[in-house]
């Protein structure tokens, strides 16, 4: 049985600017079944980050509704985890203390020992064992992002919202982290919304890839990912993946208001 964990229904939102309202989302519908990984791609500045803030309950849409687990989202909820392009680790805390942070807020009564055990378990899963007492400034960019991921899921959120979490990393580190992300979900299933600019990333990680149109964004295309075989990076070089990537690229070009090259 799969119920829909996230339901975005007819969401329209505009920002107020000195030059009048700037519409970013228009009549957007997104549905993510429980346990699914939803990747969202679209042209720059099309309102993808607004989408994450709406799902996290940090903002209210002008029109439309966001539902999480059958409940209307009216404000921030404890059942959400967030990760950004900037790992935003607190420099005055060790890696372990950073990962524990959400537990201090969501589960203040949880014994310190249990919190630390939970954090250490996650750090081990992402390959950061032995670094728990280091400061963020002593870690590389990829390691910091790994720690940031641990922090985002330490309180076992229903949904993990990621806004270009791997965007600032080099290509090799990025592929490592895709694999880490995938392995993490094998062990701890959670529903995921990933905003990205990287089509290969969206295909490797996503169960569905949503292409948003240019601003104001609405759903332009939904790709159901049929990954050939196991989710390993090598799979990206198969013809099946090539076709999917090709389709996505065409759709992005349409979203950008260009004629797809294939049609020329």
């Amino acid at each position, binding site marked *: 049985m799969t119920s829909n964990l996230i339901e975005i229904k007819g969401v329209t939102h505009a920002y107020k600017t000195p030059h009048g309202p700037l519409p970013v989302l228009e009549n957007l519908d997104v549905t993510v079944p429980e346990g699914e990984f939803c990747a969202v791609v679209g042209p720059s500045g099309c309102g993808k980050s607004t989408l994450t803030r709406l799902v996290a309950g*940090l903002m209210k849409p002008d029109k439309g509704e966001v539902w999480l687990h059958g409940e209307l989202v009216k404000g921030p909820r*404890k059942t959400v985890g967030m990760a950004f392009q900037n790992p935003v680790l607190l420099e005055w805390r060790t890696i372990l203390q950073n990962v524990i*942070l959400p537990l201090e807020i969501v589960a203040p009564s949880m014994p310190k020992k249990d919190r630390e055990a939970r954090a250490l378990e996650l750090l081990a899963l992402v390959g950061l064992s032995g670094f728990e007492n280091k400061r963020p400034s002593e870690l590389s960019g990829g390691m910091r992002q790994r720690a940031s991921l641990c922090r985002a899921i330490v309180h076992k959120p229903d949904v993990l919202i990621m806004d270009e979490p791997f965007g600032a990393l080099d290509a090799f580190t990025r592929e490592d982290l895709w694999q880490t992300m995938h392995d993490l979900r094998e062990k701890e299933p959670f529903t995921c919304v990933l905003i990205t600019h990287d089509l290969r990333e969206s295909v490797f990680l996503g169960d569905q890839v949503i292409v948003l149109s240019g601003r104001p964004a609405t759903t332009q295309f939904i790709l159901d990912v049929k990954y050939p075989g196991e989710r390993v990076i090598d799979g990206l070089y198969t013809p099946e993946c090539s076709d999917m990537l090709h389709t996505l690229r065409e759709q992005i070009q349409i979203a950008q208001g260009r004629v797809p090259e294939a049609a020329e």
Partner: protein
Amino acid sequence: MNLFQKIGVPLAAIVVFLILWELLVWANGWPDYVMASPSDLPKAYSKFWNLFLIGSWQTLWRTVAGLMIAVLFGTLLGMIMGFSRIARDALYPLLVGFNAIPKATLVPVLALLFIGQHNFNTVMMAFMISFFPIAVSVGIGLSTLEPEYRDILRSLGASRYTIFTKIALPKTLPEFFGALKVAVTLAFIGTNLVEIVSPHGRGLGALFLSAQTNSNYPLMFAVLIALAVLGIILYYAVVYLERTFAGWAERPAT
């Protein structure tokens, strides 16, 4: 080696400075009423040691008291300006204007407002002259907090107070201590200003004034050096606090 570098090198620099000073006076053949030399100072200290002790204590406690008020008031003001755009727009011109007033002109104002309250006036002056950098740096530190830092806690439903104590406050600590180092020196200037300008003053400033009245030039220089020593002590007290509370901001030398 490390300890030698930390204490020995600065100490050596001071000795070199004293030698150069002595040489300068000696080479020019200046009498002590033009410029006293370091070798004149021990006499002044041994003769007036009790005045130095009393004066130093008075100067020190009033500076520290003024500084503490400046920290409280400056942090509060900085918080208001950091969290509210309207407050920032409203208060900034006022603050800058107040800071631009030469504080010497406020000595008679204070003296008339609180006649005879010498301690109070001195503490007030130390406070007024030193809260500005603290307010500005705390304000800037809070207003430049990246939204993501707030979002990671806000998305969990954390209160504004929790966000402030867990993130905003520790994140501004390095800026706060930077400002405090400036404020320490300023507070000293404030204290001494009142001590020197107002009649029947106390503290090292008053000792300086009486040395001047009595044409005891070596004593004047001795007071200046004593002030410098007090300044160094207070400054390093702040450095110690900074290491304790914001040591994480210091990167290991590479």
